[in-house]
């Protein structure tokens, strides 16, 4: 039945309540990846979903198995990643009895799933599974949880395969945008003197990257992206502004403050992007395109709302633009693009590489030595921001990060999921020494399944991002952010059966990366970097995004 939804891979961890399911699973062609912790299984399914474009599937047991998935589910919910998570449940007659390994996981995950189900009759199972997959992948995607009492999965029923789309009377996402609105959008885009596009994860999820690039180039509109939107627009394109927001580029944040029109598409104007909302794009009329109406006017006032799928909307905009005379557009943009270029030259992302390895240098060398073509996952914190700033992403689904929830420990399992989905691609997890320890056990999974993921630890011996805040806003009181003791990552990698490498001097960086890339199995690289390096630019939380601290 799950196979009927096109599933060929499941990430999971067995237990008493799902032992029957596992027994059955062994008799199918479905591949099962045994994680070392249920959180790892969900993040792996998340990484798998992003790279494969399919729904990620996870199977865990009841109680602690189920609660361990919550962080992974919440992360996927924030980032709109399609997952179906099957959790075991105690037998129906014990539900509510505080039975062994019982927890009300449907209650617990209600606010962090797109929808969830407790299946109470085996006759409902097939329909529920179909609905779960349909909900997960349609509209604004997201995780769906299906709780399966042991007696329900033990029962036998007949299953009729059907390719019909399940009908849910109360669920009908709007893919087609309103044409009248689109005509207004076209007018505004053509006429604007200082327009910019702010693209997000919605572009990647709806596979609208090519349409976006076409639109931006024909109208000469600079494009900034959110963290989740990195790769939606080629990072090396002259029109690319890089990322905006708290750690955005100078030119992206300055453009935001000075533009007269902003097309926000597949974004949700998160607080890490807008800073102080009153001053965000204060001179601009904002057009907001999103498939989820709740995203529109949630955080910022919107001049022209468009509810629709990003790809469908961009296709239609491009079709409408085919009928427009665009010959005067380049002249109209000249002054604006010159200004953007001036900002670009005034303040580039920069660091000064001397005797101690700079973390940014490691990311830049990774970019160079992987030809900008690796799939990059990150943990959360400084490592994530340096990866976002210094690896120039060329295509969608190349950058996997826990954007909304910000989960430390996301990167390694997500890299594993990505590698399962794309066995021939190079997958690198850019990590910090703090984050990596949150799910380091998954290295065993990588070794067991011969998944040659490369982990690059930017090891500064601190919980670096919090330390940076303490340095800037708490008079350098480094309370509990110093990781005084850490394992020897090289020996640890070896203990897991992976290759461990270390670089302590700048001239060793290239050699370590090359050795790692040449190694056929999983590798953990320990880069001893400048301990108190900070991520710049930085906008203090709640400040206008033009108030950047620049090194």
């Amino acid at each position, binding site marked *: 039945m799950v196979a009927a939804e096109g599933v060929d891979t499941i990430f999971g961890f067995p237990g008493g309540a799902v032992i029957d399911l596992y027994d059955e699973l062994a008799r199918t062609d479905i591949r099962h990846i045994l994680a070392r912790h249920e959180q790892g299984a969900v993040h792996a399914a998340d990484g798998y979903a992003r790279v494969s474009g399919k729904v990620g599937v996870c199977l865990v047991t009841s109680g602690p198995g189920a609660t361990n998935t919550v962080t992974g589910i919440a992360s996927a919910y924030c980032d709109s990643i399609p997952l179906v998570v099957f959790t075991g449940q105690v037998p129906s007659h014990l539900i509510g009895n505080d039975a062994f390994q019982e927890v009300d996981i*449907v209650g617990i995950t*209600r606010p962090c799933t797109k929808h969830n189900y*407790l299946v109470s009759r085996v006759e409902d199972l097939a329909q529920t599974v179909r609905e779960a997959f349909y909900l997960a992948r349609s509209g604004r995607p997201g995780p769906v949880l299906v709780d399966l009492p042991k007696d329900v999965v033990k029962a036998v029923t007949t299953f009729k395969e059907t390719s019909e789309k399940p009908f849910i*009377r*109360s*669920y009908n996402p709007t893919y087609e945008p309103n044409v009248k609105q689109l005509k207004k959008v076209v007018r505004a885009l053509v006429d604007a003197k200082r327009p910019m596009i702010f693209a997000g994860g919605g572009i990647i999820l709806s596979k609208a990257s090519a349409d976006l690039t076409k639109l931006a180039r024909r109208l000469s509109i600079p494009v900034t992206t959110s963290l989740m939107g990195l790769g939606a627009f080629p990072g090396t394109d002259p029109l690319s502004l890089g990322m905006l927001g708290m750690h955005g580029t100078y030119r992206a944040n300055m453009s935001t403050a000075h533009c007269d029109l902003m097309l926000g598409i597949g974004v949700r104007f998160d607080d890490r992007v807008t800073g102080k909302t009153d001053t965000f794009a204060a001179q601009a009329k904002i057009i907001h395109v999103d498939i989820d109406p709740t995203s*529109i006017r949630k955080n910022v006032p919107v001049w022209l709302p468009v509810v629709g799928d990003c790809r469908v909307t961009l296709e239609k905009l491009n079709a409408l633009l085919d009928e427009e005379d665009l010959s005067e557009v380049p002249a109209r943009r000249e002054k604006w693009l010159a200004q953007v270029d001036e900002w670009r030259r005034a303040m580039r992302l920069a660091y000064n590489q001397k005797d101690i390895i700079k973390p940014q240098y490691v990311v830049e060398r990774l970019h160079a030595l992987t030809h900008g073509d690796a799939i990059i996952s990150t943990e959360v914190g400084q490592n994530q921001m340096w990866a976002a700033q210094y690896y120039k992403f060329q295509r969608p689904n190349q950058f996997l990060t826990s954007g909304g929830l910000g989960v430390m420990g996301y990167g390694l399992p997500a890299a594993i999921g990505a590698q399962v989905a794309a066995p021939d691609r190079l997958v690198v997890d850019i990590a910090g020494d703090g984050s990596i320890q949150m799910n380091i056990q998954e290295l065993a999974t990588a070794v067991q399944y011969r998944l040659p993921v490369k982990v690059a630890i930017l090891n500064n011996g601190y919980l670096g991002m919090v330390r940076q805040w303490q340095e800037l806003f708490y008079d350098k009181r480094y309370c509990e952010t110093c990781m005084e003791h850490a394992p020897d990552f090289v020996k640890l990698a070896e203990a897991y059966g992976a290759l461990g490498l270390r670089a302590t001097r700048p001239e060793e960086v290239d050699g370590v990366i090359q050795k790692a890339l040449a190694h056929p199995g999983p590798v953990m690289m320990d880069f001893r970097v400048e301990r108190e390096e900070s991520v710049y630019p930085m906008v203090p939380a709640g400040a206008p995004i033009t108030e950047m601290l620049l090194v």
Partner: protein
Amino acid sequence: MPDERHILSLLVENKPGVLSRIAGLFSGRGFNIESLCVAETLDAGISRLTLVTKANEAVLEQIFKQLNKLVDIIKVTDFTDVPAVTREMVLIKVSAKPENRAEILRIVDIFRCKVVDVSSEHYTVEVTGDQGKMAAILDLLRPMGIKEIARTGINALSRETKGRNGGR
């Protein structure tokens, strides 16, 4: 933007957990619920839920959109913009000392409500009406000694049925 009171009428799937989804949405996002009234419609698979909230325009827009986003919610109507009948029922247990009994019955008569339970100590009065009527009778009965009350919260129906929701 000032907060205004809104009566929302929701048609929802009559399934376990639906109320919890709605209540959780309101508490999780800091929306306000003043009253809530719910029971099944003519179609046993669908319940009508009448909810009173106080919100400014921007928050109300979010409430609307977030409710519509819940998979089990079929339809949301704001009765602020629609001509609607709104009623509430309250049961009032009022102390009925011999010297007050006649006065209580007179008030009950004037307000066209009824005494539904009598004991040696008290009357229980059933009042149905709009909120002004509730406030008025509670004010009049308070001096006699109200022991406890139970209110249903506002229940509402639009004056005209339109479209496919007719008959529910």
